[in-house]
């Protein structure tokens, strides 16, 4: 009886999490014929069927999209996120439902459902280069990455072809080209700025933002049931065309088609089970969020893709005789060296020229992107590393609201085009430090009896210097371009709101100072892999999701070969 039950709960592979990296693990393993169990702590979200707001007009939302005041007051954390609006708030975790401890202020923005945050992400996808992978070694922080660009380049290509990445081949060594669908063009004002930068700065570039949208689908995308992006820019609602990449539109249905996928929603992983006698992990312990029952599932290997900080939580909570400090944590660095992206500065301006052009339709890529230009080829400033910058221009309809009656009505209906409004936001690298960490709360538990995560992450002096430089440099570049009313906007937002938290189970060569090896495999427990944001040794400035996808596909390939060799 027990043996039968155990057999029924046994799979080749268990993947914890169905977000952007878990979805990739599921696709890769099921395609290769492995019976795969994907555990998702939230509810199921089926592509299209479970996008209730996707075809709504603005007037169909209860308050034109603005969350009611009572909801905002009940959810101060998630309310700070730009995407927390009536059209997408059902995809975002409410503060009270999933408490955590903020030793220092940290806005932890989460999406607990099948597909995770891949439904909501901003879809920006840039490759890393060796200027990024060599950063820690060259600039003496964190530990050296155990891989280089050549190790991951073919896997970037592999995931890009399937996911569908639009972009131009810009030929920049600091931002390697990929397998691109046509890029979304810059508009007149963005192109003008690009020209100014090109003429005045040898090593600064403005390019079309690269993003996970099907500008021109290939057969592989049509085979997924996805279609050309329709420029709705309502992506956070879930796309009925599958115009952007998400687990829901792409990897999960692909995995399901193989017949090898079992997807179990409402399943919080309490811990990964380490068998001291066997010297390896045998499965995971799951709490059903509806029944609160605990069930064990078994497998040959486990991929932990719970989302960077939750992956740390699960590993820390997976204690055994062999690993009293958490699974794979011989070194004591698990949960430490957490970093993020510094998004705390923006700048806007006006440009009086090019009034003969405006924009028509909408650009899903969002505009332009300026790769990191500080400290790329050599150290040249008083701070470490640097920042990338989003660059965008738009004109909106100014509608004069001052009058009343018939005149007001006329003014409202016949707007006047504004000048070009130019904008930029900072995406800064932060330096992982031992003092930026997460650990398990000794006293607080979540509704399923699992210790809450305690988060202690803050900005440092380097972040401040970098922010100052961003404002100075963007002001200078905007001035060179003849922009007026240049207005820096420095926000006091807490870390976390960038939604790019990374690290805690970093990769490295030395088991004494890192958790994962060059294959995203636990140094000290070879049948457990981590390929979400927790694996990141440093953050660089690129939006991280594409790198997680590439790590995942590469790691599955390695794991399968190792299993075939009988090593795992």
């Amino acid at each position: 009886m027990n043996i039968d039950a155990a057999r029924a709960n046994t799979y080749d592979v268990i993947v914890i999490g169905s977000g952007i990296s878990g979805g990739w693990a599921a696709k890769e393993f099921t395609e290769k014929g492995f019976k795969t169990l994907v555990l998702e702590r939230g509810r199921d979200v089926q592509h299209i069927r479970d996008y209730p707001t996707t075809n709504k007009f603005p007037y169909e939302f209860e308050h034109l999209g603005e969350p009611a005041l009572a909801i905002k007051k009940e959810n101060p954390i998630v309310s700070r996120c730009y995407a927390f609006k009536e059209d997408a708030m059902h995809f975002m975790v409410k503060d009270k439902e999933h408490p955590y401890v903020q030793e220092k202020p940290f806005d932890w923005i989460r999406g607990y459902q099948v597909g995770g945050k891949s439904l909501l992400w901003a879809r920006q996808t840039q490759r890393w280069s060796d200027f990024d992978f060599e950063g820690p070694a060259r600039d003496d922080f964190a530990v050296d990455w155990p891989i280089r660009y050549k190790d991951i380049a073919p896997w970037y290509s592999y995931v890009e072809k399937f996911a569908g990445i639009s972009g131009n081949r810009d030929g920049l060594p600091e931002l390697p080209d990929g397998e691109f669908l046509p890029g979304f063009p810059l508009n007149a004002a963005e192109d003008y700025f690009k020209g100014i930068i090109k003429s005045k700065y040898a090593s600064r570039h403005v390019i079309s933002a690269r993003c996970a949208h099907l500008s021109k689908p290939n057969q592989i995308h049509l085979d997924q049931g996805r279609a050309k992006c329709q420029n709705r820019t309502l992506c956070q609602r879930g796309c009925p065309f599958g115009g952007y990449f998400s687990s829901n539109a792409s990897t999960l249905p692909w995995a399901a088609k193989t017949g090898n996928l079992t997807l179990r929603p409402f399943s919080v992983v309490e811990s990964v089970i380490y068998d001291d006698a066997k010297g390896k992990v045998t499965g995971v312990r799951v709490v059903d969020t509806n029944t609160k029952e605990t069930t064990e599932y078994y497998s040959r290997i486990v991929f932990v893709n719970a989302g960077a900080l939750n992956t740390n939580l699960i590993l820390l909570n997976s204690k055994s005789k062999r690993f009293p400090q958490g699974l794979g944590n011989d070194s004591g660095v698990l949960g430490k060296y957490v970093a993020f992206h510094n998004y705390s500065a923006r700048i806007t301006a006006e440009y009086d020229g090019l009034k003969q052009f405006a924009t028509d339709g909408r650009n899903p890529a969002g505009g332009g992107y300026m790769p990191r230009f500080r400290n790329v080829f050599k150290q040249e400033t008083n701070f470490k590393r640097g920042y990338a910058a989003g660059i965008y221009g738009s004109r909106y309809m100014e509608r004069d609201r001052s009058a009343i009656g018939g005149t007001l009505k006329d003014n409202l209906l016949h707007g006047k085009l504004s000048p070009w409004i130019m904008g930029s936001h900072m995406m800064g690298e932060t330096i992982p430090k031992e003092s930026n960490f997460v650990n398990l709360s000794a006293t607080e538990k979540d509704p399923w009896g699992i210790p809450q995560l305690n988060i202690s992450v803050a900005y440092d002096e380097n972040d401040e210097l970098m922010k100052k430089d961003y404002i100075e440099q963007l002001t200078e570049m905007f001035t060179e371009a003849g922009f007026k009313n240049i207005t820096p906007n420095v926000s006091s937002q807490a870390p976390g709101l960038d939604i790019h938290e990374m690290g805690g189970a970093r990769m490295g060569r030395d088991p004494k100072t890192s958790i994962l090896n060059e294959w995203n495999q636990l140094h000290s427990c070879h049948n457990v892999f981590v390929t979400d944001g927790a694996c990141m040794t440093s953050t660089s400035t690129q939006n991280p999701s594409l790198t997680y996808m590439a790590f995942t596909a590469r790691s599955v390939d390695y794991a399968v070969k190792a299993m075939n060799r009988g090593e795992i």
Partner: protein
Amino acid sequence: MERRLVIKQILIMAGGLALLPSCLRDEGKSSILLKNISISLNEENLLAEIAETIIPRTKTPGAKQLKLHLFVLKMLDDCYEEAEQKQFVKGLSMFEDQVHDQFSKSFAKLSVHQRESMLSKLGNNSSAELAAFYKIMKEKTIDGYLNSQYVMTNLVIYELVPGRYNGYFPVKTA
């Protein structure tokens, strides 16, 4: 029979937004269900006249036909702080008194010119309540109008599925 009637009346459309009605037998109360503020049917009717003065019927529908005053009430009820809600309600009642003191008749009976001039004066009124009332009333009437189904499908078209992007769309410079 009665059940069918209730279902038919169950939703009140305001600018395209479906609102729940208040209890149908409760006479003298506002027609839509409000959780935090209390507005009488008379006040609701006055708000309709004010909204219509801000955005009147011309060749195209005005605020009253689009029920924008109900949209204002819905927003006020759900999206404003209690202090602002109180100011609004107080300001509305002060305005009603002001009209009566000045003209000895109701706002609805005034000429368009008289109505517009009464409202225009509110913007820089020394009374915080009157100013707050008018600010919210005007802002939300305009928001409701521009985002109404009528305007978005007939006058300033909102495209759900543009299917294109042109970054060099030629426009007149004048």
